């Protein structure tokens, strides 16, 4: 294949996007396409996995292999795919409800597993697809269809939580800055391990508070802070705490072996490539001897 371009991805998209014009998920998806193309990844070697939600529909609009699974379970599905075929680039693209609500446990357990996936969360602080209910990242007191008197719960703090849970890669992007976002996605793909990228991605239809303007004005861009060291976990936690999560850029990265590398027995070659599974007769005979 010649040099890969974004067009190579777009060519196989069969479904027109149903996202609202202006939705923050568009730039994020574009960033993912650019990053994949920029890294020369063939679309046949990429799998995008979603749960259920507006954002989770991304696989259909992306142009690679995809799996639009069920609400909250995108990460386990992606884990299975990656273990089946280590050569694939597997990206989970989902929402805050999907990932921090119903799917929170999978998220944090996958953080500690440190499997080589990219996890992009379109964090719009709302349930978009179901037309505007409170999400786990909705600010305390926010009025939504399921919190007409304001939410009583404090929001989850996904960045801090992922850092605390021991994530090896934590970044936050903003749909209003595709350039930075593309770079972050590239880094996430290149990271060997679980790369978690929260994207402040406005829902222009159901969230009137967390808008492009709000985030543009209130987010500290770490790229503007040359002295910031993304390899210091304590420092990372501090900066997130200090700005109450309103930072963007690469927050933390650490090199360590990924799950596939640590999982006892897992073949170095992609398992999926083995089509002929016939089992050596003599091996079977030998195994049976263990049970004599």
């Amino acid at each position, binding site marked *: 294949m010649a040099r890969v371009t974004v067009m190579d991805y777009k060519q196989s998209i*069969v479904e027109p996007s149903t996202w609202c014009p202006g939705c923050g998920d568009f730039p994020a998806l574009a960033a993912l396409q650019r990053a994949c193309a920029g890294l020369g990844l063939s679309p046949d070697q990429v799998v995008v996995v979603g749960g259920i939600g507006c954002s989770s529909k991304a696989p259909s609009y992306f142009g690679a292999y995809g799996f639009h699974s069920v609400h909250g379970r995108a990460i386990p599905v992606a884990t299975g795919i990656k273990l089946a075929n280590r050569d694939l680039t597997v990206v989970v693209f989902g929402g805050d409800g999907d990932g921090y609500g119903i799917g929170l446990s999978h998220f944090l357990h996958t953080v500690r597993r440190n499997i080589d996936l990219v996890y992009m969360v379109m964090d719009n602080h709302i349930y978009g697809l179901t037309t505007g209910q409170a999400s786990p990242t909705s600010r305390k007191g926010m009025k939504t269809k399921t919190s007409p008197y304001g939410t009583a719960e404090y929001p989850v703090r996904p960045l801090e939580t992922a850092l605390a849970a021991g994530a090896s890669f934590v970044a936050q992007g903003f749909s209003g800055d595709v350039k930075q976002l593309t770079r972050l996605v590239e880094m996430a793909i290149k990271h060997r391990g679980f790369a978690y990228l929260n994207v402040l991605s406005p829902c222009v239809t159901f969230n009137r508070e967390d808008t492009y303007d709000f985030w543009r004005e209130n987010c500290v861009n770490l790229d503007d802070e040359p002295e910031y060291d993304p390899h210091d976990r304590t420092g990372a936690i501090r900066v997130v705490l200090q700005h109450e999560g309103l930072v963007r850029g690469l927050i933390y990265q650490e090199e360590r072996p990924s799950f596939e590398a640590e999982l006892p027995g*897992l073949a170095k070659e992609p398992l999926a490539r083995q089509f002929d599974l016939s089992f050596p007769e003599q091996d079977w005979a030998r195994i049976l001897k263990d049970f004599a």
Partner: protein
Amino acid sequence: MSVVTRVIDFTWKVGGQQGEGIDSTGEIFAQAMHRRGFYVYAYRHFMSRIKGGHTHYKIRVRSGPVWHRGDQDDLLVAFDQESIDYNLPQLRDGTAIVHDAAFVARVPEGRELELMPVPMTRLAEEQGRSIMKNMVAVGVSAAMLGLELADFETTIRDRFGDKGEQVVEANRKAFMAGYDYYKTHFTPRQVLADVVTDRPESAYLSGNDAIALGALVAGCRLLFAYPITPATEILYTAFKYFPRYGGAIVQGEDEMAAAFMAIGAGFAGVRAMTSTSGPGLSLMMESLGLAGIAEVPLVIVDVQRAGPSTGLPTKTEQGDLNTIVYGSHGESPRIVLAPSTVADCFHVMGRAFNLAEHYQCPVIVVSDLALGLSRQSVPVADLATGTWTWDRGLRVTDDELKDVTPGTFARYRLTESGISPRTVPGQPNGRFTSLSNEHSEISVEEESPENRVRQMHKRMKKLHGLDLSDWALEHHGPERADLLLVGYGSSYGPIAEVWRKLADEGARVGRLHLKALWPLPEAGLARYLEASRHVLVVESNYSGQVANLIKLRLGFKDRIRSCLKFDGNPFTANEIYRMAKEVV
């Protein structure tokens, strides 16, 4: 050594408090008997706690094949009074109770039982560690039954070898302490002495072992699971062998994770499975629907235990079939297979993966605690590969994709059979997005009524023609029968025994073991039902789930009766026999 061949059918039981090593006593004895050339069936009775509470290990030793623990006990080794009290009903009159002299044993008046006190704990303490009372008990049993240290040598070595020669030696000594004590104080009964058996070369393994090995041989390379009694042992065996073949075992954070990981791997083209028991199964209901609509091969093993909810976690039951066949919202295809014997457990896995990949849908293998945990002697010949041949289903080759324009591959193409050829990620030009939503042939979310009806028919019709009568019905006896005994899973042994007994009594009786439960093997089943005056469906649950499936699909309401048990224990032959006599 004189050569004696006689028919042996002997049951030995050891009982005591949980956490005191009862299991290992049983395991050593059973393994040695297997190696001695007997057919062995080992059954473990235990409770959902770590220490305390009555536990026992029962071993049936036969000169011929054996598929269940047997109704009676021919010898009891008891470490406490509770073990005597608990097991009294099963103890054959005229036999003996060997008990630890540390307590004064009582048996009710009128029971003809010889009490043989042996200071097992004291003898063990004399050897340095009271836990070795278990080995003392083995020695006592050996002496009583006419066995020698030599019969236990390799078993002891295999078991304690890693811990050093000293430990091996100490155990040998403990064995001999029991052996000598018995010989000095009592008369050996010699039941198992000097027997030469003609058992063919056999393996000694459990249903769970066989499932793990069957999966391995079937090409399963990823096993995702969350620990749960009585399915966890599948993991243990898999851990031993999968890594040698590039395979891996992943302990998920819960059963949902495990099932969805397996779906991911299946989607990506690898044979993957998850194993669980009831509570885990209930958490997998969503995954059944996803695998159904996305048409992904998925194999789930359910080793049933007694429900509902936590229920009796260490007791057997066959109560999950309803949720397996009918569970998950909406309607989606699935196949349910049911091994009856340890050998079946091995063979079923190849069939399960073949069917899952062929029909691109979930296959659930239902076992049960009694089948899964009981280790048994199985002739190696019965474990030979070749009962099925490879079928990886309809896969589009890279070659066929050469000229395909990306984005045009119709993953859910409407075909005569309902099965559509699939690609897996990595294949050039074969890309598509699998969806849990209703979708068109090229896998675009699509809500039109016409498309919906077409895709629904496509998915469901895949199994319309599927009738596994060919291999999924094991029938014995005359086809025209006054009574047909029907069952699945671990009731195989007791049913076989009852059948033999009734036949010996002159009854025209058949037995039919179902190895596929959904779709029901209707063609064959109907023929057998047709030809039987009475049908007794034997199953371990309250409502007669299998009987109900048969009635719903095939009718025969008036001729079908149920033999049900749901007290947590496996069927005894006698329970079925009594009910059979009521019917005919």
